[in-house]
């Protein structure tokens, strides 16, 4: 499990670094939001879930998709708008979904996935399924009405859902303290009579531990919890963001807490993996990524007939 979380984080970091390279080459179109620095959240949360559990993600969702088991080749093809992509090239970066894997989708609307995760949890209850839904959203989304309405309904009905707030400190360029009257977001849980937990979002094992507790509680019918994971995006909000809203020193402090070297150190110290084994993980990921880029670049564009298909179910 600990090695797998490491591999997940390395995959996410490598995937997004490849996107940066492709962007510099002018191959990528559209809005891309990077989660570099936040990999421990995706890896830790998804490691606490079992088959059948589902997530809703957000506009910064590449990491969540990979951690929930998405294939890098289909993701890369989607980002390049190809017919072989997860959404046949119709969704792009902000709408990657794989319902079979329990990823109910990234989302372009801040806070848009929170009611959907709540609804999925309700659906599991209605259908008598033992699954849990997890809403992944940022600190920005915590000020949307959809957050408050969802937490209230989920708490009222004791729905099997866990609300994971990935506090990366900024809603686009606005610092949390300038956006939220109560910057200690887990205190919001008090208002809905549910547990509120704050944890280090730069530590994958800690993330997995607090998530697993909340997930098992929800699965046992005891209702939702709010988990706030303190993290940081190392990159700007988007490619080309001049990042005028924070200091280099602050970013450097957070980079010193990079979740990937931290997990590597842990694996080596405890003897769970050797240098050779970890190097092999990096090599494997690099190989798969290279294949993914080749696959995506060699894939065809969507057929023109795809413009009008998939609007309605038959």
């Amino acid at each position: 499990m600990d090695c797998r979380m490491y591999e997940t984080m390395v995959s996410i970091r490598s995937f997004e670094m490849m996107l940066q390279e492709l962007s510099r080459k002018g191959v990528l179109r559209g809005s891309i939001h990077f989660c570099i620095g936040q990999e421990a959240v995706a890896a830790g949360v998804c490691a606490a879930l079992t088959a059948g559990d589902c997530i809703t993600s957000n506009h910064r969702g590449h990491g969540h998709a990979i951690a929930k088991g998405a294939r890098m080749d289909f993701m890369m093809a989607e980002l390049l708008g190809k017919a072989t992509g997860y959404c046949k090239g119709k969704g792009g970066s902000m709408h990657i979904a794989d319902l079979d894997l329990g990823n109910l989708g990234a989302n372009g609307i801040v806070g848009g996935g929170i009611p959907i995760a709540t609804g999925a949890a309700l659906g599991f209850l209605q259908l008598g399924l033992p699954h849990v839904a997890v809403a992944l959203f940022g600190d920005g989304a915590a000020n949307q009405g959809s957050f408050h309405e969802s937490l209230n309904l989920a708490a009222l009905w004791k729905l099997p859902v866990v609300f994971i707030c990935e506090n990366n400190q900024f809603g686009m360029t606005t610092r949390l303290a300038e956006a939220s009257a109560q910057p200690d977001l887990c205190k919001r849980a008090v208002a809905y009579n549910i547990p509120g937990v704050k944890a280090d979002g730069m530590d994958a094992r800690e993330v997995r531990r607090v998530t697993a507790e909340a997930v098992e509680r929800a699965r046992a019918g005891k209702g939702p919890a709010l988990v706030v994971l303190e993290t940081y995006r190392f990159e700007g909000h988007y490619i080309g963001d001049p990042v005028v809203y924070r200091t280099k020193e602050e970013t450097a402090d957070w980079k010193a807490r990079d979740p990937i070297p931290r997990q590597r150190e842990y694996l080596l110290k405890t003897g769970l993996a050797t240098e050779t084994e970890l190097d092999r993980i990096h090599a494997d990921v690099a190989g798969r990524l290279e294949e993914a880029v080749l696959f995506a670049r060699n894939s065809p564009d969507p057929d023109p007939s795809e413009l009008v298909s998939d609007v309605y179910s038959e």
Partner: protein
Amino acid sequence: MRDLTLSQAINEALAEELERDPRVFLIGEDIGLHGGAFGVTKGLFSRFGPDRVRNTPISEAAIAGAAVGSALVGARPVAELMYIDFITIAMDQIVNQGAKVKYMFGGKARVPMVLRAPFGAGRANAAQHSQSLEAWLCHVPGLKVVMPSTPADAKGLLKSAIRDDNLVVFLENKHLYFQKGPVPEGEYAVPLGVADIKRPGRDVTVVATARQVHAAISAAEALAKEGIEVEVLDPRTLWPLDTETIIASVKKTGRLVTVHEAVKRFGFGAEVAAIIAESEAFDYLDAPIRRVAGAEVPVPFSKSLEDLFLPDEHKIIDACKAVLA
């Protein structure tokens, strides 16, 4: 056949679908013991219990999201908004999420849900409880929009809507809730996307929706005394729209009047007029098309003003005479 109100017909459809399919459940404000603001779900809470008839807080975004999310994992929710005006609070879940996920995800998602809501003016509910917002919804690819005019159609169309794998918005005119009409005994469904000619005629086609179908029939009866034969066409489903039946009717009569309660500009009537203008029926037109619609104002409270706001039999008669002049 027996006579039921539209409200009773909808109640019957809901009960039959709850009985037929364990994945179906109802969700909405005050729909529990109280039976909903208009009494449509009366008796269902006692019969099916609180898990199948879910009484919610006043929380439209959460209701819509609960429906979209549960539909995505295989349930078949029927959500009720107390008034269509409240859809503004739920709009993100309906328009950005529910309507689009199938397309955005390359066809993999399904959102088999129904969003029911009363609409329409004439009950002294003023500007925030009286609107007809169907055109907003028809404008969003991914949504289906249904608007019945009779109890029999309402029951049959709702059963089709619940069995449909798409997000269907089902709009119920408040006045019609209390109007009775014959409803067949036993199991039946009315397919979505099929118009119904409520009264055949050769001189002018009136395409009317919901309560205005009845106003159009009254107008047709009055005009028949003057030897004018009006064809009253009820599209029943606004999207998918049965354009074939509309085009065939206009080709036959050569004249078209559209009627709805929503304000005229950019409304359903404008779409019907444009469809005719783009079709082979255009060459058959003997007069310009006329649109009868709600006044272009927020719905007023005072009866004297609200009556002026609404279309009625007399406005339809005037429009028919104008296209026949």
